């Protein structure tokens, strides 16, 4: 690893950041989440904390821009340079800039979050089948209003789950119109426009008026990119027009003809030869998370590494399961030191006293030998808990017949489930405490138990709560007011009226919590925040329904 000359670094550990604008390529919540996760890469291994500011000057100001974007280092169109960042300091120092001529995704192709429809904001599922035909992008087939839509499951014909795709006909972002949709035609400087335009701007962003007369109302917003929109070229944001004519020949799909770099392109009108309108076809895109994590490394004081697998290596490569390289950890810890708190200790065999030397050691030990730990009794060694829930104000972590309690005294346990709640099976999928009468509800498979102190009701089938027979288990629970809870299973949840022990008839819906994964394996409420858990990670949503933290269960909640 390398640091910048003079070991430039922040002189404080509570670093702030602010997102100044967004890319049209992804929904804002997905961009927020990518940045939050990228910061977490560094806060996991240092004493640094990162707080997001919504106005004013932050240490790290994050922005998207194209070509000349206000500093002496212009970007270069699609591919090539992806982003850059400045080492710590005042002014532009510490800031991170992302080239918006890139196609920003999570690294594996379009990430299309839907709005409206009946899928409650789920992501599009590509490909999906509609009327027997397979679609790999949003379509306006089947509609007369031209709105692009997609299915959020593989088979619309069976599941009928759909939502609308990003489109200027549905909403805008940024600007001053609170996200209102474009109004076409609109008038700008006396001219009439029937679509989004880059006229009047020098940054290449497409915009529209949200009333029919911009000259009079001055209301505008930026147009979100459609998933089928081309990137770069001279028609940014327009969809490909198939078939199109190029050098007299008809093309029915993207082509690399005419280019020496092998990049796929298409025309955005039906005749390239005549109109010369074109752009690059959408591809897998670049992972905003990975690029941001790299740039934030610069913003914290790391220069480029020459270790190819290190995050701070200058070239981009996509990795599915990211973990910070030893070289990056050593680099950042050289600047800021390690994260405070005990390190995880490997299990060790119990020393046999008979084999200990009976002569005293000649030098005093510099470290204390950790007490042997039985992995089955160490919560820090558990990769994934069966469920986590708050009981009497303390978090309880359940795993295979045991549970741990995290209180202000620290982590205690493991305790045996059978000692406190003897009727329960070893694996508990979900649990919650009724806030009114402190009864404990436990779910395992298709059964549930209710404990009032030591008296037991159950087990009973979860279908008795009004859950459909198709529900094979309840995976998580969120309190909704004092007398209702939401029971989560898969991507659905139901609202249970606790005193009636019955779910509302019409209250089944898909997960509508923005910014959290749809495939969470546990959900719980703790100190008024909602936690959505997937494997080792959690997404914390505050009372304003904003995801304000993404973290590790092990390090943050268990304080391992």
């Amino acid at each position, binding site marked *: 690893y390398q640091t910048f000359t003079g070991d430039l670094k922040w002189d404080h550990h509570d670093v702030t950041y602010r997102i100044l604008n967004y890319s049209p390529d992804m929904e804002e919540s997905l961009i927020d989440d990518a940045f939050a996760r990228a910061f977490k890469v560094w806060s996991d291994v240092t004493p640094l904390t990162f707080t997001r500011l919504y106005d004013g000057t932050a240490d790290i100001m994050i922005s998207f821009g194209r070509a000349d974007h206000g500093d002496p280092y212009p970007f270069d169109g699609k591919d*090539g340079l*992806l982003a850059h960042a400045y080492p710590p300091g005042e002014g532009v120092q510490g800031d991170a800039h992302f080239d918006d001529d890139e196609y920003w995704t999570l690294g594996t192709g379009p990430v299309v979050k839907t709005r409206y429809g009946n899928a409650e904001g789920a992501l599009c599922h590509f490909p999906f089948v509609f009327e027997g035909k397979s679609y790999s992008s949003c379509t306006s087939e089947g509609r007369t209003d031209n709105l692009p839509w997609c299915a959020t499951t593989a088979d619309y014909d069976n599941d009928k789950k759909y939502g609308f795709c990003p489109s200027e006909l549905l909403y805008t972002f940024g600007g001053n119109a609170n996200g209102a949709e474009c109004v076409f035609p609109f008038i700008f400087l006396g001219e009439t426009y029937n679509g989004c335009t880059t006229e009047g701007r020098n940054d290449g962003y497409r915009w529209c008026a949200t009333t029919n007369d911009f000259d009079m109302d001055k209301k505008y917003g930026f147009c979100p990119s459609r998933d089928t929109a081309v990137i770069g070229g001279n028609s940014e944001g327009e969809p490909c027009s198939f078939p199109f004519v190029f050098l007299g020949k008809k093309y029915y799909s993207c082509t690399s003809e005419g*280019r020496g770099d092998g990049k796929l392109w298409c025309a955005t009108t039906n005749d390239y030869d005549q109109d010369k309108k074109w752009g690059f076809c959408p591809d897998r895109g670049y992972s905003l998370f990975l690029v941001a994590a790299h740039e934030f490394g610069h913003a914290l004081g790391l220069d480029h590494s*020459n270790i190819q697998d290190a995050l701070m290596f200058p070239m981009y490569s996509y990795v599915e399961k990211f973990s910070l390289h030893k070289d990056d950890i050593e680099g950042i810890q050289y600047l800021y030191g390690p994260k405070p708190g005990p390190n995880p200790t490997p299990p060790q065999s119990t020393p046999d006293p008979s084999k200990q030397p009976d002569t005293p050691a000649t030098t005093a030990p510099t470290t204390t030998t950790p007490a042997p730990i039985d992995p089955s009794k160490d919560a820090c060694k558990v990769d994934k808990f069966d469920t986590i829930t708050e009981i009497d104000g303390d978090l309880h972590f359940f795993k295979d017949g045991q549970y741990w309690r995290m209180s202000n005294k620290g982590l205690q346990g493991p305790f045996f489930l059978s000692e406190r709640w003897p009727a329960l099976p070893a694996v508990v999928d979900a649990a919650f405490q009724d806030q009114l009468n402190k009864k404990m509800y436990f779910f395992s498979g298709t059964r549930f138990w209710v404990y009032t102190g030591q008296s037991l009701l159950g087990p009973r089938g979860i279908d008795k709560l009004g859950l459909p027979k198709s529900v094979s288990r309840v995976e998580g629970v969120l309190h909704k007011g004092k007398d209702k809870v939401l029971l989560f299973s898969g991507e659905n949840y139901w609202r249970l009226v606790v005193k009636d022990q019955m779910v509302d008839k019409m209250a089944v819906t898909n997960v509508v919590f923005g910014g959290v994964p749809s495939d969470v394996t546990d959900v719980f409420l703790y100190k008024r925040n909602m936690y959505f858990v997937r494997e080792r990670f959690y997404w914390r949503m505050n009372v304003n329904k904003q995801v304000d933290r993404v973290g590790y269960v092990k390090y943050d909640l268990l304080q391992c």
Partner: protein
Amino acid sequence: WCLPLSSVFVTFPGDILKNVTDEELADRYLKRFGYMEELQRSGIQFQGSSSKALMKMQRQMGLEETGLLDKPTMAAMKHPRCGVPDVRS
């Protein structure tokens, strides 16, 4: 076999990434990322001045240090990357 039968290259309007020769691309790359300082280059032929810079770049990128514009080096130069220079003056 994967090349089109009759390749034609056109200049696409608005294309920032123009067709450039390998030498031009390498020259720009070595300069942009700090391997070759501008003063060092003035008035000197590419081949002579850049060999050291190329080797420096090849070392940084984990490539064989040939000092030549070989295929792996050109591929590395075309690879998407961060805009922060690798070498500082």
